[in-house]
């Protein structure tokens, strides 16, 4: 059993494992100690001098992030001395900070703004001209660096050294002339750049992708799981429900990903916006003319076609591994269980390197729920190997193919090509998010689907751990449905039209 220590935090007894710092203990107890340079995923720097607390018996204030709790220690975070120290820490941080709030993306989630309103609210005494430094520098694919806004907390330097182990950032010069930067001629060039934007407490590092798109106080965030690969990082999706649009993803602390996520996952919102989505269901009438219709109309059309053939030999199911386990269960229960379909194929990317791993988070299996799909196939009594059976669909001789496409076209480089090949078949019903399905004139039938942050369900990651989606946004496409809803509607149509 590991050793514990008990100490007093603001009068309350707290027991923690030996070696825990006061800052970590306070976090666990939901006691706010203001800080800039401390981060739970990085080493302790102790340079901002903001997290000062009073320890009984010691003459000077101590920083909480480097203070190991010992038995009997009496720590107070709210004495007059500590409060004054917090105010002056803010004063020192702000005296040379530029008045950039109107043009800075960090406004609304800025450490300086938030702490000034909670522990500051003092009258500044700075009346002299401020120190000027270079602004708006390009230091990476997704990074814009403003060295004047930087408060030199060194979180980014430590991230580069400890997490990505690339060491691309340093602090140059000294004193109040010190600036963050990369080495001459170099840029940051890895798959984890936007984490620097997240950890920067102020607007020194901002995301070029998100730059000026929206003010953050208009956004709502909901927890989800990234659908980009089989790691299944916990994320927060940021959208504006009033306009049904999405703007960005940020990592959430999770078992699979720690505090970080990769840059590839950052783009997992762009496929959800209305301009690239399938906006209405599509059917084709008897004369071969295509028309937009609503969900009920599409179900009616599909139900009729399926009823007119023998499902066991004439219907094939092509399914990708990017949907939730609950959706797969309902899909197979209906098609295999009820209809008795035998032709079930997996849609995987032919160029994928499934065992690739970049050493940190990003894996070569660009599907969120391969494990879920395989176990659902096994449960349904089907072959459950890891192979791309796309070609087998064409030669299966099926009259009707239900193609449950990958949700995120960017994870499947051959997506467009394969879509085109499918449209050559007799009759394919696309159940998809991708607007390119509607652009293709040969598409005969399509049902729009919900994206990952718009439905509830579970993704199983490469380790077999489950990631929950349980906080849905309203779907921007009115007729968008997830697989369970489509299946329920089909079932209902069949039963109301007297089928077994």
């Amino acid at each position: 059993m590991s050793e514990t220590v008990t100490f007093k935090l603001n009068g309350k007894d707290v027991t923690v494992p030996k070696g825990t710092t006061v800052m970590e203990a306070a976090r666990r107890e939901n006691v706010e100690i203001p800080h800039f340079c401390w981060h739970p995923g990085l080493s302790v720097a102790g340079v901002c001098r903001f997290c000062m607390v009073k320890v009984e018996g010691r003459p000077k204030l101590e920083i909480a992030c480097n203070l190991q709790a010992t038995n009997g220690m009496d720590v107070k975070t709210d004495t007059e001395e500590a409060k004054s120290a917090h105010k002056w820490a803010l004063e020192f941080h702000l005296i040379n900070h530029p008045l950039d709030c109107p043009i800075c993306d960090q406004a609304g989630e800025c450490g300086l703004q938030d702490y000034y309103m909670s522990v500051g609210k003092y009258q500044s005494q700075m009346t002299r001209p401020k120190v000027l430094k270079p602004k708006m520098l390009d230091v990476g694919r997704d990074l814009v660096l403003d060295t004047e806004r930087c408060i030199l907390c060194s979180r980014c330097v430590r991230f580069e050294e400890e997490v990505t182990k690339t060491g691309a950032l340093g602090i140059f010069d000294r004193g109040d002339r010190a600036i963050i930067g990369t080495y001459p001629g170099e840029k940051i060039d890895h798959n984890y750049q936007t984490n620097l934007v997240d950890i920067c407490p102020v607007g020194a590092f901002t995301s070029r992708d998100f730059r000026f798109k929206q003010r953050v106080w208009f956004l709502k965030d909901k927890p989800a799981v990234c659908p980009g690969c089989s790691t299944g990082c916990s994320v927060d999706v940021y959208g504006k429900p009033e306009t049904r649009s999405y703007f960005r993803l940020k990592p959430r602390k999770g078992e699979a990903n720690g505090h970080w996520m990769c840059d590839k996952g950052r783009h997992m919102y762009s496929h959800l916006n209305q301009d690239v989505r399938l906006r209405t269901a599509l059917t084709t009438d008897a004369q071969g003319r295509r028309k937009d219709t609503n969900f009920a109309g599409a179900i009616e059309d599909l139900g009729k076609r399926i009823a007119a053939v023998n499902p066991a030999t004439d219907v094939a199911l092509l399914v990708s591994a990017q949907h939730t386990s609950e959706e797969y269960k309902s899909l197979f229960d209906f098609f295999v269980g009820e209809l008795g379909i035998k032709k079930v194929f997996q849609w995987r990317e032919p160029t994928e390197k499934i065992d690739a791993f970049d050493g940190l988070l990003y894996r070569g299996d660009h599907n969120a729920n391969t494990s879920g799909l395989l176990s659902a196939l096994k449960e349904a009594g089907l072959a459950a190997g890891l192979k791309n059976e796309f070609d087998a669909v064409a030669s299966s001789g099926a009259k009707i193919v239900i193609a449950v496409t990958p949700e995120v076209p960017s994870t499947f480089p051959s997506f467009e090509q394969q879509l085109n090949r499918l449209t050559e078949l007799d009759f394919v019903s696309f159940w998809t998010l991708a607007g390119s399905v509607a652009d293709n004139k040969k598409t005969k039938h399509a049902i729009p689907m919900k994206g990952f942050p718009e439905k509830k369900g579970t993704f199983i990651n490469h380790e077999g751990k489950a990631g929950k989606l349980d906080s849905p946004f309203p779907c921007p496409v009115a007729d968008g449905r997830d697989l369970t809803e489509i299946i329920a509607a089909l079932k209902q149509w069949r039963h109301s039209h007297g089928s077994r």
Partner: protein
Amino acid sequence: MAVVKVPLPPIDSNVFSAGWGYITTIAAGMWKTLAIFTVQLLKIEKTNTLEWPEQAATYSDRFKGKHFLTLRDDGEVRCTACFLCATNCPADCIHIEAGNHPDNELEKFPVRFEIDILRCVFCGYCEEACPVDAIRLGPEYAMVGTNGGKWVYTKEYLAERKQLSGGVISVKDENEKHPIVEAPKGSRNAKQIKSYARHGIH
């Protein structure tokens, strides 16, 4: 419940309520109208009615009329697309799209700045919220148009207001802005800024 006997009210005896009351009332009214008509026609008495549009109404300097966007010395709109006006607006009628300005000094500017003037309640909260004195509610009150006309004022329309007296250049001193390459003379780290720009900090 007992019945209470209420006596009849006393009969007024003035000329308007007697049997001939309706004739006297009509005559009094017509006399009133004629008197005022004559007095005003002969300009003996002044009226408060303005003969619009020959006579224009004047309002105080604080009157909140049609919005306009102020300009800087170089002709660009002062607005930095900070969205404070849009956030503060109780009618949710300001729509802004921000963009990257090619000039490093300005950095952010509104690509689109639109006010849906039919939604606007002319409260002035946007003027109050603006940190850079970019939007003001001016003295113009005559806003006319037809059904289906242009009721969403764009940035160009809001900024182009040569007819306003006193101009729309804000008095704020633009020279407070700092350069990225040339530091002001005597600034303490002018040499460093120059060298960073020359070598590029990255």
